[in-house]
């Protein structure tokens, strides 16, 4: 076991840090109005273009398709240093860079790759994901959105939900049912859907923090060329799952590193907040709970390093991804509650009040609610751990 970075990796870090220190002062803050999706797209794609120009786009994508081809350790360094220095997040580029793009790399035809991968890396193509449906959440494979062949086109009817950035996406990675008579995993196909196709209706959903993070997307006789299918007809479930092996256990790592900064800010705030004749930090119970969250986040960072090592040795992510997600969700809930304990009444405001610095913590409190639901609920993750790792029998 070795936690040291090699000389090459440290050189990668030094070069990255030098560039970040140079350019980040020229990058303004993200748009204040989180519902202004045009502004969010402009901001996030501009950052992607800067990464592209500097050779950091597609940090873990293979060099053959224009990626950086960074080693797993370099990937972690990239996440660590961009987070530490407050660089913009992947934002609206997340589906394209972390899910649709990797799927295309693994499964698409040369023509499809050429049409999309370079444009994604440059920040010229934004993607969204059409997987979940109102009736197909945890049981994703029961999805019903139909695609019926009509000559060299599919005609699509149905609806999708939890689609992030739908308002500003150019393309959608869409799972559709092409064989309603086959077993549920065997009748699904994976399509590239241009979002300007007639018949698409996007209805934003207001989420708990009050922002329109997700949309419901309706399809009414939407026609997509058969040539836009990736992989074989009815093989879409496998195509969609292939991507998870690309992930290497780095999902949620940026925000986990951001959580460490939240803990430090919370401790600093607790030392200032008046409580009785002293400060909140005088409360040993509160102090220990903050210490505990810090220990948990340190452990999660170590777990990420194990997961990444195992993924790079075996080529597929190990069970650590689910373990990480389960624990990270739980720690974020605890961190959110700690914020409320420190800020008390100021914890009722999503905006900073009286210079308390409460805003990010209250935002985090609400964000934490989604972490144990998104990308596989805590309950589904526990089933995955119990059945795939521990080998317990399925009951479904």
């Amino acid at each position, binding site marked *: 076991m070795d*936690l040291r970075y090699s000389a090459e990796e440290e050189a990668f870090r030094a070069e990255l840090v030098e560039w970040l220190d140079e350019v980040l002062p020229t990058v303004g803050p993200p748009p204040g109005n989180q519902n202004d999706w045009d502004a969010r797209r402009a901001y996030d794609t501009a950052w992607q273009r800067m990464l592209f120009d500097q050779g950091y786009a597609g940090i873990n994508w293979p060099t053959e398709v224009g990626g950086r081809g960074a080693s797993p350790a370099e990937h972690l360094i990239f996440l660590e240093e961009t987070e530490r220095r407050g660089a913009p997040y992947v934002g609206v580029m997340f589906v394209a860079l972390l899910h649709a793009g990797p799927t295309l790399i693994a499964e698409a035809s040369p023509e499809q790759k050429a049409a999309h991968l370079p444009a994604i890396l440059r920040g010229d193509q934004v993607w969204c994901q059409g997987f979940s449906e109102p009736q197909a959440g945890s049981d994703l494979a029961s999805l019903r959105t139909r695609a019926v062949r009509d000559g060299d086109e599919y005609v699509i009817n149905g609806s999708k939900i939890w689609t992030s950035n739908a308002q500003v996406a150019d393309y959608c990675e869409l799972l559709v049912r092409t064989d309603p008579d086959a077993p549920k995993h065997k009748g699904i196909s994976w399509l590239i859907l241009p979002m300007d196709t007639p018949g698409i209706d996007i209805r934003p959903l207001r989420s708990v923090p009050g922002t329109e993070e997700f949309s419901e997307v309706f399809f009414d006789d939407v026609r997509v060329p058969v040539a836009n299918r990736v992989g074989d007809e009815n093989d879409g479930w496998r195509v969609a799952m292939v991507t998870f092996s690309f992930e290497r256990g780095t999902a949620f790592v940026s925000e986990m590193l951001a959580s460490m900064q939240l803990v430090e800010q919370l401790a600093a705030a607790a030392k200032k907040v008046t409580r009785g004749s002293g400060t909140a930090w005088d409360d040993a119970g509160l102090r220990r709970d903050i210490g505990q969250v810090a220990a948990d986040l*340190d452990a999660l960072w*170590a*777990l990420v390093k194990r997961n990444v090592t195992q993924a790079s040795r075996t080529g597929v992510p190990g069970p650590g991804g689910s373990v990480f997600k389960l624990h990270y969700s739980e720690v974020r809930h605890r961190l959110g509650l700690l914020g409320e304990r420190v800020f008390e009444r100021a914890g009722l405001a999503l905006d900073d009040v009286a210079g308390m610095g409460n805003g990010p913590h209250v935002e985090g409190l609400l964000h934490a609610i989604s972490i144990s639901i998104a990308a596989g609920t805590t309950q589904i993750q*526990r089933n995955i751990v*119990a059945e795939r790792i521990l*080998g317990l029998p399925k009951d479904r």
Partner: protein
Amino acid sequence: MDFDLNEDEAALQEGVRSFCAGRFDMETVRSLADSAGVDRGRWRELADTGVFGLRLPEADGGVGLGLTEAVLVFEELGRAVVPGPILASHLAAGLVDGALSGDRVVGLVERPAHPVLVEHLDALDALVVVDDEGLHLVEADAISGEPVGRPLDPWTPLHVVADLPAGQVIGGPEDAARWRLEGAVLAAAQLLGIAGATVELGTAYAKEREQFGKPIGTFQAVKHILADMLTRAEVARAAVYAAGVTLDDPSVGDPARAAHGAKLIAGEAGIANGKACIQVHGGMGFTWEVDAHLYLKRAFVLDTVFGSGDVHAEAMAALV
């Protein structure tokens, strides 16, 4: 960066695991309650395996390995719930005559404490007292103590010692600080072993025990207990392994922070998993016959060694 076992480390882990399976099987471990947790023959076998001299230079009769490897060894000793003052004798090897060879059984106790409770006193030849001033060696026959009639962990007998002799100074404040840090990490490694062993024990039972016509592991209510147990064990594993590596090479992190975090998290994992393992076993889990209670009781003991969870949580808070 390569944060998984290399070939040598995997071989070491496998070697200690098979040694424990052969020489400290559960029947043997259970029988050690009759001899204050220590059988002299088995103790020398631990010494011959290199448990005590693991981190001493080869020139001094040791194995010449680091804390990274010691963590793997102590994880296995925890997994097998091997009783006795193994951690104390490991720390004392090279400093106290006979500890390395296993000829003398060396224990330790921390001070200040009230009451002072010494583990395994009847099996000890010598005791190291660890306090802020340093390390003090006391011959066991100079210590008089009142035995505790019913120790929580029958494999860790206790004596209340009212007056500890001053003893001979064998180390200064820096040595004591080093023992505390290394001791916390190695106790955490034993707790990690317990956390992992209870996942396996509980999972095996959930696959075999049937109710309502199915293995109980089919039911999500049981599955989710076991998934949470695995999560605790794997998070603790990451923390404890990282602590071992960081104490060996402080260039990769803050050793104190790594040690405090590891002990805190592994302590909770050991205790919570021990309890959950009993829960999975239902009524049988509350019997003496099922092994689950041995793990839980040892976890309670180890959590108090070199600082309980509260102590380490407070220490973490000071480092945030």
